[in-house]
């Protein structure tokens, strides 16, 4: 579904991503993990096409460089880590932004667009929020509203940059469960960045470990979340145990004082 070859991004004279390869098949969930500044968000933005990059991005067998922005937005939906939420906009209008790639430049949304939004809001349990202003929502509600906008794009690929940031434990779980259900129901391909390694290991099929802009490990959660790899690249003392479903759980270990 997504093939990225030799992807490099230069920002401010620094190589933020350096020759990264990614291969994600249809319906797969890839979690991009790595220490701060490893280039996780940059990778998503480059795949989305909103950052200048070298290398090749192939989406659904089509070269990314040959896609018009509107075509690309119908293939890939992107939710940034800290989305700009215009406080006065209603939830309905915000979700409607997701229909932008389908509405002609000078056109207005059709009845079908509005039906799709109504359907998406209902799926995410947001029907009662449709007329609420985005600025009045709680963190968990906001995350669902951002997800609603992404789903409204009806794209087969979902890129989520840290979808659990600033959420409490329960809401983190709810959002990831929701993404997982939507993925199964719609056959979506999902790429998320996640800083919580245990969460990443619990939900993703495959992990990609980035460090210093390079891909340093890639594979099933148990293959990537090893004491050696995590210890080296995160500069952390951890203990890793097999958790539910054989997926690893990462604990921090307190140093001796």
């Amino acid at each position, binding site marked *: 579904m997504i093939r990225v070859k030799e992807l490099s991004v230069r920002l401010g004279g620094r190589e933020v991503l350096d020759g990264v390869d990614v291969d994600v098949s249809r319906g797969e969930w890839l979690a991009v993990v790595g220490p701060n500044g490893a280039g996780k968000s940059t990778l998503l*933005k480059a795949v*989305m*096409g*909103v950052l200048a990059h070298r290398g090749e991005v192939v989406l659904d067998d089509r070269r990314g460089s040959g896609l*018009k*922005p*509107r*075509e*690309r*937005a*119908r293939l*890939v*939906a*992107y939710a*940034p880590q800290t*989305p*700009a*939420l*215009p*406080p*006065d*906009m*209603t939830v*309905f*209008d915000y979700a*409607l*932004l*997701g229909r*932008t*790639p389908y*509405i002609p*430049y*000078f056109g*207005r*949304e059709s*009845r079908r667009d*509005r*039906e799709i939004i*109504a*359907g998406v809001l*209902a*799926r*995410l*349990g947001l*029907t*009662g929020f*449709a*007329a609420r202003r985005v*600025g009045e929502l709680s963190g968990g509600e906001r995350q669902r509203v951002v997800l609603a906008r992404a789903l409204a*794009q009806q794209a087969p690929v979902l890129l989520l940059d840290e979808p659990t940031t600033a959420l409490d434990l329960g809401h983190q779980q*709810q959002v990831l*469960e*929701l993404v997982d*259900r939507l993925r199964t129901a719609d056959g979506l391909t999902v790429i998320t960045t996640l800083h919580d390694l245990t969460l990443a290991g619990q939900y993703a099929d495959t992990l990609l470990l980035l460090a210093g802009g390079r891909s340093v490990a890639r594979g099933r959660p148990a293959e990537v979340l090893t004491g050696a790899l995590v210890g080296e690249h995160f500069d952390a003392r951890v203990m890793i145990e097999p958790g539910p479903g054989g997926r690893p759980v990462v604990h921090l270990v307190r140093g001796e004082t």
Partner: protein
Amino acid sequence: MLAEQATGRTEGRDPVAHVKPARARPVWLAGALALLAVVMIAGLLGGAADIAPWQVVLQVADWLPFVSADAGLTPVEQGLLYELRLPRVLLAAVVGGLLAMAGAGYQGVFRNPLADPYLLGAAAGAGLTTTVAVVLLPGSALTTPVAAFAGAVGGVFLAYGLGSAAGRTGGTATLVLAGVAVTSFLTAIQTFVQQLGVEELRRVYSWILGDVGGGWEQVRLVLPYAVVAAAVLLAHGRMLDVLAVGDEEAGALGVRATRVRFVVLLAASLATAAAVAVSGLIGFVGIVVPHAVRRLAGGSYRSVLPLSLIGGAAFLVLADLLARTVIAPAELPIGVVTMFVGAPFFVAVLRMTRGTAT
């Protein structure tokens, strides 16, 4: 709380009907147009000569095509209305609408509710070229409107060029800063030129403080630009709403933000230049009116743009009426009135809607 719950929802028969997207509601547009009509009739009434309101209404009806009405006015009164007051009211309406809509456009492009039609060097550019025309080239073919138009457009392009060159990403902050720099520089030159011809100071100042008494000639001059600029701006309401999430996210939604911004900037600058060319520098309209509209009718540019057009027209007609009547038979410069009336009006709107908007 999540998807499962959605199956148990109870809603009306039509799941789409209960929330409407933000667009200009017909009732708002009708209300704004009604307000504009009332203000325009008042504008035709105001001033010397004893004409009753109903006579004005009948006379206006008579001017319309396919309508014939006898208002019982003398030819002199008819002439007064048609040659003096009507073009004045129309010019005020067009200029007010243009400035308010251009303000809304700039605010959308810069994602800053305090952006102003004069922000990007338009006023300073027009001020400079007009001063040059008045002081250095008196009696030349370079008339004030032409000079003002060229100056406004030149000022904006200078700021845009500098801003784009300085910030590779074309971010909004660099553009605003470039506008500030250009404004200061051009104003300095303008003051210098002005000091070279102190005897022309009065003419320069009367232009700088604004005047909508230019007659039919100016109305005809501004109208084509007004129509083009208004059409382009009104067509971009939805796109400006998309830009509200920032360039990067707009890009992820398939919108070329830089291109949209350039087109809207061009149209808003054309509107500003056209307004400045026929009326001088009239401040505050471009900030006050869109802001009031936003407070009353919500922040979507799909309603802010058309309602600013109508509201700005009504606002400036009213300001001109006050300018003509407050110290009659003398006249106040309209730019003074817009600030004097605009500021309290602005505060009133802020207080009225306190707590309901950001």
